[in-house]
């Protein structure tokens, strides 16, 4: 889009404004950054439930007898093996193995798949899927404008949702989905999320979004679920060790550097990037994504250099970092050389000109029930 284009609004824009949200431009959309306090929103998701508007995400639909075959060729995962009403985390890579986006693919019908892309990458993913699907008997449609997306996340989410639907939530497993009626609206109800908590994502028609939001708000107490913005979404996913495109995942790196080589399935037919990814797998990455916990209180931030603590020599780069609300310490993810990536290696981060000691730790920083 051109810089002068005004940001797009989601179907819930008026709701956010009425709640007094602090709005920010994100991936071409005007989105709520926080409603009141991002810390309160973060803790609400860890301890109760948070309600998110994720309508900026892209939805691309593939239908037809060869939809699965086309996705197997276009993506790195094995979509042909995906069961009805199941979901899979996967990626779309360039021919050289670089990551174009990370995706969730939902099998919504016998011959129908919903591909959810990051907002900033929707156009690229839709174009690549269309191009890669030519020659397959499938139709690719960018249906982003036909979908709103709400997420209710946290340990209280299932209980809240149960008051609004007859759907069998007990048998809706993690990374599964089913068509359901929630508060009188037809939705695709998926047990997926980006917070490290149990939770649900609800795909619905844009016209139903506001009514669904209000029903979910009213399902609990005044603070459950708490409307939660992108700031808490980012700190929640960081604690959960989940990558964010543009930070941990980029066009310049393959899934293997990100420690996500397991999503690349070579035991299927040819797919875009196969040769380059196989070579990278066999050679092994030279740098890898690690978790860092700072010993002090100054947080490493995206782009800061990771340095050798003895010499100060730059050896890597922070991709995301923030004070962790749950741990009470700054945490970060960073790319470092493989030989410096073992827990608990002591490293340092150059935080605005001063070295701050950090320790390499296992990801994630936070695991629910832990």
């Amino acid at each position, binding site marked *: 889009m051109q810089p002068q284009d005004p940001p797009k609004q989601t179907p819930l824009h008026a709701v956010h404004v009425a709640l007094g949200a602090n709005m920010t431009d994100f991936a071409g959309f005007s989105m709520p950054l*926080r409603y009141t*306090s991002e*810390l309160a929103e*973060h803790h609400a998701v860890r301890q109760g439930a948070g309600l998110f508007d994720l309508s900026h995400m892209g939805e691309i639909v593939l239908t037809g007898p060869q939809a699965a075959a086309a996705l197997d060729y276009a993506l790195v995962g094995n979509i042909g093996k995906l069961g009805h009403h199941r979901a899979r985390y996967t990626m779309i890579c360039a021919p050289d193995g670089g990551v174009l986006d990370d995706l969730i693919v939902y099998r919504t019908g016998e011959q129908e798949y919903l591909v959810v892309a990051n907002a900033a990458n929707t156009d690229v993913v839709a174009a690549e899927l269309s191009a890669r699907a030519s020659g397959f008997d499938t139709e690719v449609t960018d249906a982003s404008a036909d979908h709103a997306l709400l997420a209710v996340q946290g340990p209280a989410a299932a209980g809240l949702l149960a008051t609004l639907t007859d759907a069998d939530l007990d048998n809706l497993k993690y990374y599964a989905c089913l068509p359901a009626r929630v508060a009188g609206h037809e939705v695709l109800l998926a047990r997926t999320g980006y917070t490290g908590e149990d939770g649900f994502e609800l795909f619905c028609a844009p016209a139903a979004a506001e009514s669904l939001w209000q029903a979910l708000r009213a399902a609990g107490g005044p603070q459950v679920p708490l409307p939660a913005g992108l700031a808490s979404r980012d700190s929640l996913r960081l604690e959960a060790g989940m990558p964010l495109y543009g930070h941990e995942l980029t066009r310049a790196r393959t899934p293997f550097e990100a420690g996500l080589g397991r999503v690349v399935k070579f035991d299927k037919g040819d797919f875009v990037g196969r040769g380059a990814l196989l070579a990278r797998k066999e050679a092994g990455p030279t740098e890898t994504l690690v978790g860092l916990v700072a010993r002090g209180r*100054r947080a490493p931030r995206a782009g800061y250099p990771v340095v050798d603590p003895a010499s100060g020599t730059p050896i890597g780069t922070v991709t995301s970092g923030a004070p962790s609300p749950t741990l009470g310490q700054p945490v970060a993810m960073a790319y470092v050389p493989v030989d410096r990536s073992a827990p608990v290696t002591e490293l340092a981060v150059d935080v*605005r000109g001063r070295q701050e000691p950090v320790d390499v730790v296992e990801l994630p920083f936070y695991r629910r029930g832990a």
Partner: protein
Amino acid sequence: MNFPADLRYSQDHEWCTEPADGVTTVGVTGYAAESLGDVVFVQLPEVGTTVAAGEVCGEIESTKSVSDLYAPVTGEVVEVNQAVVDDPALVNAEPHGRGWLFRVRVEALPAELLDAAGYGALVGAEA
């Protein structure tokens, strides 16, 4: 947003009091606190050091961002607010009160500081 009339304000979103016995109290404005988000860490100048108006003298960090703290006045730091070091959320809760940051011995306040109306107009123009 309400900015107390008895404070003076800098373009860098700090406030200070009229000096009492030559000492002024410094904090960040409610507008700055709101823009930062939840403050989780403040690094203040040490007692005995000298700060200079318009120059960086510390850091203020929220979950989403970190910002330099600019001194609105020139002089020697005579006290820091340990309560805000221990509980940085005071900056959000009471930016113009208990969330004050440090005290400086000054000869006079810089003439370019704004009054409440002037500062309100400044951030109104920014908002």
